[in-house]
């Protein structure tokens, strides 16, 4: 039993789960801001990839991960602005627009990585420092899991509450939800639907851009083409699984990344011969089940996906 426990090493398991959930939660909350205001965002993957790339590129040339961080966020906002312009102003189908951004992000990061970063073998800008929160980090179990992390993970933990508060307690949140449910009603109440949607889409870019910084500036200190590896889509799944709420998305992300870690452990530590492919399917299959309503229907904002036309 004690052997099992030491092999399971739950504290490290949970700590890794929390860390790897970081970009999922951030991107999922980005998707949430966006979709709560009525705009589908399947561009999370592309935005994260762009954020990871620009963040690293800027950090590389400025030698500051912090400037890189700012750049990651700003670049996320910029590329999200493209999504906003296309889908809100030009009434392009939101899924098409999101998809275009994903393709574009692969192209841009791939081409410019090749040109400017690939052959660089000098030491990179490094990663965000580890910060142990005084006192709290010394608490057993809780401390190592929550209070011995790096910037993006702390930011994620704080942002869960911030986004929840914004969505459900503030004027902005009320207006956002109104635009996502019934934009015309919002407009007759004197709300500028376009403005609300633009801001939320751009905010989603900031969150996903921050999520991108996780890859290049928090975990690796380097950029690699395609390094987000489809996590933007898992984040989308986490958002749905979490029923468009920050806490729900957090729980879903933990479930997804946790199942990943448990799967690896089964192979490496417990030598359980489950094909890894099946473990890899968990997030996707769970999402399908949820979308199919088996765990209580996930109700998307009513107007999500529908371009809003004035008048």
């Amino acid at each position, binding site marked *: 039993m004690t052997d099992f426990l030491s092999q399971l090493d739950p504290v490290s398991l949970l700590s890794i789960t929390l860390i790897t959930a970081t970009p999922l939660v951030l991107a999922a909350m980005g998707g949430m801001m966006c979709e709560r205001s009525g705009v589908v965002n*399947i561009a999370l993957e592309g935005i994260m990839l762009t954020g990871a790339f620009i963040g690293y590129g800027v950090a590389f040339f400025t030698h500051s991960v912090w400037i890189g961080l700012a750049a990651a966020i700003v670049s996320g906002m910029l590329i999200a602005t493209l999504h906003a312009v*296309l889908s809100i102003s*030009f*009434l*392009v*189908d*939101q*899924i*098409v*627009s999101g*998809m*275009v*951004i*994903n*393709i*574009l992000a*692969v*192209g*841009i*990061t*791939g*081409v*410019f*990585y*090749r*040109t400017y970063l690939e052959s660089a073998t000098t030491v990179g800008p490094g990663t965000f420092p580890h910060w142990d929160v005084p006192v709290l980090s010394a608490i057993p179990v809780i401390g190592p899991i929550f209070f011995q992390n790096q910037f993006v993970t702390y930011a994620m933990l704080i942002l869960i509450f911030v986004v929840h508060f914004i969505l459900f307690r503030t004027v902005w949140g009320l207006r956002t939800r109104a635009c996502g449910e019934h934009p015309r009603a919002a407009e007759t109440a004197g709300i500028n639907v376009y403005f609300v949607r633009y801001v939320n889409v751009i905010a989603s870019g900031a969150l996903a851009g921050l999520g991108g910084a996780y890859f290049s500036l928090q975990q690796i200190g380097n950029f690699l*083409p395609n390094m987000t590896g*489809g996590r933007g*889509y898992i984040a*989308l*799944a986490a958002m*749905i699984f979490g029923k468009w709420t920050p806490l729900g998305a957090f729980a879903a992300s933990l479930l997804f990344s946790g199942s990943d870690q448990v799967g690896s452990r089964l192979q490496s530590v417990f030598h359980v011969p489950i*094909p890894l*492919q*099946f473990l*890899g*399917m968990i997030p*996707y*299959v769970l*999402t*399908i089940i949820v*979308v*199919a*309503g*088996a765990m209580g229907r996930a109700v*998307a904002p009513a107007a999500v*996906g*529908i*371009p809003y036309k004035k008048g």
Partner: protein
Amino acid sequence: MAAAWRGRVVTTVLVPLVSVVCGFLVGAIAIVAAGADPLVAYGALFAGAFTNHNALAETLVSTTPYLGLGLAVALGFRAGLFNIGAEGQFYIGSLAGTFVAYSIHGLPPVLEVPLGLIAGMAGGALWASIAGGLKARFGAHEVITTIMLNYVSFLVASYLVDTKGLMLAPDVSTPRTPDVDPSAVLPVILAGSRLHVGFILALLAVPVVWFLIERTTIGFRLRAVGFSQGAARAAGISVGRTIVLTMALSGALAGFAGIVEVLGVNYHMTDTVAAGYGFDAIAVALLARSNPWGVLPAAFLFGALHNGAGFMQLETQISSDLISIVQASVIIFVAAPVIVGWLFRLRRAPAETVHITQREVDAPVT
């Protein structure tokens, strides 16, 4: 009448054409930013796609899967379904078809090839029907389910191809399925090249799909459901069954593309999943404005881009990811014709925006 006709020409020909040009212009900016000469790069792209030895034949080889996949997505669009899962259906179709094709021995090609093709189409159809069924039964949005099913299909492919006793060929050093028999191979039609009968089959699929959509009751049903689920239902059309049927047909086309690629080019499957066909297929369908005839030039363009990219990289060492920039830009201009309108002051162009997402979301159909 003449004005309306001219309007049609503008939307179906001019806007895509101008969009392609604009897409290349954006790509040129990227090439300059990447430190190369766009003229050299595009020259190489062109040469690699058309003028080099065998280039045109290779472009047609690359066009072949895009034809099937583009038709698959376009067909879905016509019924208001956004099939992002073409890639997964491509793989599952390939798996099923390959399995049948390498398992069967001793039959003449006239039997073995069709059996392989049918198995491939059935595999794609079944896989796509999952998403169709979930939508029909539970109202699960197909965009989400097909994205998720794509990943599941990669893992299924990897599991089947990598596992001894399943589809992994014995005595090979690389994880792949056994080769299909020569009698299951789609013969080459241009000596000295890889251009195979599958290209002709894919070409024939265009009028077949057009006929299906425009001239048959199935196509009518599919369009009626695509435009208005409510009206279709009230007229006694089973929306659920139509959705499943449409997804199955769409998946069959994607599976067709997959198995043709195996029987015509590779002769086996590997576990390597890195194509991104699903997104390309959507781009092809958008560029074609969901019209089967439009898929023809659109697939050709994508085949040419794919094929020319190698030579472009050879000549300029620009990453072949540049093609993605061109493709994405083209779709932007196609999907937002307003931009083209502004750029070229085609103010009168009645270029309506492309609308895929359903007009109305109905309650699940039971």
